[in-house]
């Protein structure tokens, strides 16, 4: 057993809700100087509201308020799995409700950065163990026996010598009156009964019979439907519109101009209100809108990459990270490499297109939708509409995919503005075409890598990136360097290579861009690990040996050993191509080995992908495997089949026929291995994505001798 103190700035709050339940929650207070516990009575006196992450009722049922979204990543299972372990209850006795947006209660709720588990597991373990100890103490007091003779199991406290037992429900009233223990014993990993077990996901049954409620499934009495024609160049203004034909569509009730705030800009659109989704969509199609597209640049994709290349060749950019003297080493070296890598714009293209239900009621507004950041939306709407924050109620549904797009606050704002105009609840439905053409997108980024080798050793690495910066677009921080320029690049390289520099060459333009699964690591990872593979080749080293040599960190060494073992690296065949890449993303390291061969028609076939994930402490290995399997498929699409391109400022891809997703027949066999250790937990939902593409392109080089530095590329035309 080990003790686990509460982390700084967090303290536990305990309350008995009118004596009917035991409620426990954590609260992150910016003012708390040190860890502290406050008793229920004190909490009430200070007017602190209980957040009730865990509520145990007199029926013994546990209700967990999940402050994060479930968008496929599995926290709907893994969070209760943590709680059940230390609380000693059965999974079936835990009910989950999604929290409403409120960061005063829950702290940050943004489901992003693969942060749900790594950001809360220590608190959740502590919270659950505290509740368990309080229940045991309550039982011991009732029986008049020492606490040491009692233990908890399956929602009961048992007295070992006599075999007497109390159900948790019988103890909550007494327990809620007790002081919470300041320190509790947490289990060792070897004592876990639920954590680290591949338990089935509890949301699966809801997702196999149509029962799960996604945003688009939310219906309210009297709800109308809206579809909006927005500027095809995002920033265009409405010159005029003709709704004559739209109003003739049966079911169309109203047509008006609407604005949607996107940070400090406004987007314009024409909203069509109808009594069914279809009538709204048909009405939108029948609109004739004339746009004023003056005042901003109309982008063409080839120009973007021409400009990137020019910037990378002529500008040193803004320094982000630097050690040693890279330029001096490069100048005097004879064995050097200089390469440019290009990555495309990407749509998030979640299967559930954007949508939002809003009900504006004067001094109150309520929102339902597939939402990654309910607290951000609450604050945003409150500020823009001057409604007190507590009167902005933001409800999360299940998300049909998010990948970063659904952390944006534009689509709920637009829904609220439409509800305000019509005075009734409304569901705003984005068509697939709206979803794909409006952005925001993962920015296409180009990179230049320069490196030197002396005596078989890498002596210098110089990386520059040129591409839109998400932060610049949001907040006009122009002129500042992108501090994510080295994201994805493994830190141990800095220990073994003396001269390294990363720089950002800012490139600004009016297209909206946003986080996309694994964020900068998704593009950085391709460039940097491709470059390292090329450097290994230049040094005449085996890909894995090269990693062993430069990634001296013990966890990396174990990861590399595992990659070698599971992929059969030492027994590689003659007509097979093998590639390797290892990247870091959100505090987890993932290595992948990809094996390819020639198809009879000449194209490239992916025979196998082996992925090794080191995410430190973890909950559910099967969910981790699923996340990595899915990340590989998502990376495959972005590398080989789909990109967003612009012509005269218009997005050229409008639906899946032009943005071809990998399908069943494209999906490679992926084997995932999870490293076992007790290091701090890292992310799970995103880190599996970045290493795939550089490992794939290296495998293709290994097989064919062809270098691929520009994405996407056609696997049938290598």
């Amino acid at each position, binding site marked *: 057993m080990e003790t686990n103190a509460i982390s700084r700035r967090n303290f536990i709050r305990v309350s008995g809700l009118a004596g009917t339940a035991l409620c426990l929650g954590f609260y992150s207070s910016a003012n708390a100087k040190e860890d502290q516990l406050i008793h229920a009575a004190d909490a009430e006196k200070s007017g602190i509201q209980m957040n009730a992450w865990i509520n145990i009722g007199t029926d013994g049922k546990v209700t967990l308020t999940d402050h994060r979204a479930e968008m496929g990543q599995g926290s709907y299972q893994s969070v209760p799995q943590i709680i059940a372990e230390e609380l000693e209850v059965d999974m079936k006795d835990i009910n989950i409700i999604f929290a409403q947006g409120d960061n005063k209660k829950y702290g940050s709720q943004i489901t992003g950065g693969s942060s749900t588990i790594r950001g809360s597991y220590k608190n959740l373990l502590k919270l659950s163990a505290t509740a368990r100890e309080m229940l045991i103490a309550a039982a011991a007091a009732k029986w008049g026996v020492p606490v040491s003779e009692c233990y908890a199991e399956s929602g009961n406290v048992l007295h070992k010598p006599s075999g007497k037992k109390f159900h948790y429900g019988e103890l909550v009233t007494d327990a809620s009156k007790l002081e919470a223990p300041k320190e509790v014993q947490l289990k060792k990993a070897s004592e876990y009964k639920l954590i680290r077990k591949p338990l089935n996901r509890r*949301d699966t049954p809801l997702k*196999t019979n149509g029962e799960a409620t996604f945003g688009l499934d939310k219906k309210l009495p009297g709800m109308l439907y809206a579809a909006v024609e927005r500027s095809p160049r995002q920033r265009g203004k409405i010159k005029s519109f003709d709704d004559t034909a739209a109003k003739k569509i049966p*079911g169309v009730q109203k047509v008006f101009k609407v604005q949607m705030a996107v940070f400090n800009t406004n987007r314009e659109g024409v909203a069509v209100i109808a009594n*069914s989704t279809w009538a709204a969509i048909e009405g939108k199609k029948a609109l004739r809108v004339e746009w004023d597209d003056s005042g901003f640049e109309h982008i063409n994709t080839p120009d973007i990459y021409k400009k990137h290349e020019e910037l990378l060749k002529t500008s040193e950019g803004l320094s982000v990270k630097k050690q040693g003297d890279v330029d001096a080493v490069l100048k005097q070296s004879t064995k050097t490499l200089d390469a440019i890598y290009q990555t495309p714009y990407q749509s998030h293209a979640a299967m559930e297109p954007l949508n939002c239900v809003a009900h504006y009621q004067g001094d109150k507004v309520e929102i339902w939708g597939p939402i990654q950041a309910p607290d951000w939306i609450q604050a945003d709407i409150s500020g823009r509409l001057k409604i007190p924050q507590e009167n902005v109620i933001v409800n999360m549904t299940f998300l*049909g995919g998010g990948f970063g797009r659904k952390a944006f606050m534009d689509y709920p704002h637009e829904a609220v503005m439409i509800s305000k105009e019509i005075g009734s609840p409304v569901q705003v439905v984005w068509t697939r075409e709206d979803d794909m053409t409006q952005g925001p997108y993962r920015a296409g980024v180009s990179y230049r890598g320069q490196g030197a080798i002396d005596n078989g050793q890498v002596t210098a690495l110089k990386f520059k990136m040129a591409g839109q910066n998400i932060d610049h677009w949001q907040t006009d921080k122009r002129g500042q360097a992108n501090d994510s320029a080295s994201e994805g690049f493994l830190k141990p390289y800095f220990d073994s290579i003396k001269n390294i520099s990363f720089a950002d060459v800012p490139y600004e333009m009016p297209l909206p861009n946003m986080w996309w699964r694994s964020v900068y690591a998704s593009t950085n990872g391709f460039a940097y690990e491709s470059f390292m593979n090329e450097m290994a080749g230049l040094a005449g080293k085996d890909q894995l040996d090269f990693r062993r040599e430069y990634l001296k960190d013990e966890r990396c060494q174990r990861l590399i050993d595992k990659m070698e073992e599971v992929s059969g690296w030492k027994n590689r065949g003659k007509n097979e191509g093998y590639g390797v890449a290892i990247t870091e993303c959100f505090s987890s390291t993932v290595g992948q080995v990809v094996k390819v061969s020639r198809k009879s028609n000449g194209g490239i076939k992916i025979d196998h992908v082996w992925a090794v994930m080191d995410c430190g402490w973890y909950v559910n290995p099967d969910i981790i495997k699923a996340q990595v*399997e899915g990340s590989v498929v*998502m990376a495959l699409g972005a590398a080989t089949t789909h990109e967003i391109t612009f012509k005269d400022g218009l997005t050229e891809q409008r639906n899946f026929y032009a943005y071809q*997703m990998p*399908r069943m*027949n494209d999906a490679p066999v992926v084997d995932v291995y999870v490293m076992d250790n007790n290091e701090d937990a890292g992310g799970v939902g995103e880190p599996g994505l970045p290493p795939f593409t550089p490992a794939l392109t290296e495998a293709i080089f290994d097989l064919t001798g062809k270098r691929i530095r520009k994405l996407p590329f056609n696997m049938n035309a290598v």
Partner: protein
Amino acid sequence: MITVTVNGQRHDIDADPNMPLLWAIRDILGLTGTKYGCGAAQCGACTVHLNGESIRSCCTKLSRAAGQQIITIEGLSANNNHPLQLAWNEMNVPQCGYCQSGQLMSAAVLLRENPNPTDQDIDDAMSGNICRCGTYQRIRAAIHRAADLAREGAKS
């Protein structure tokens, strides 16, 4: 008024006969398990059965369903216990889950027509259904598992 039998229940629907069946099912009948993904028969999220055959309800007019038998995901089994549903649960197929109704409805026709599908049969039957979460490997494994379950069920 258009009469359609959905999951064994007769409905008289008062709507434009040109309305896609998808929106009639979702907005009028309130059966929201069938999903909108693309509106262009590209992704398969809206797959339902019309007289036992897979159709893309986003591109099928309501009038086409007049007097016909429609089965949606809500009607695939009485108790979430179609062999495919059991296999999906056993193998933790869904992630976000949004496309899975369509995946299951497509797989159900495959399995009925071909109780012992090969990987190639699965590729052929399932390539019309997109999963953005990338659950294909598990879908494939679960279809094989469901085939086993169905055979075991038939023997017992």
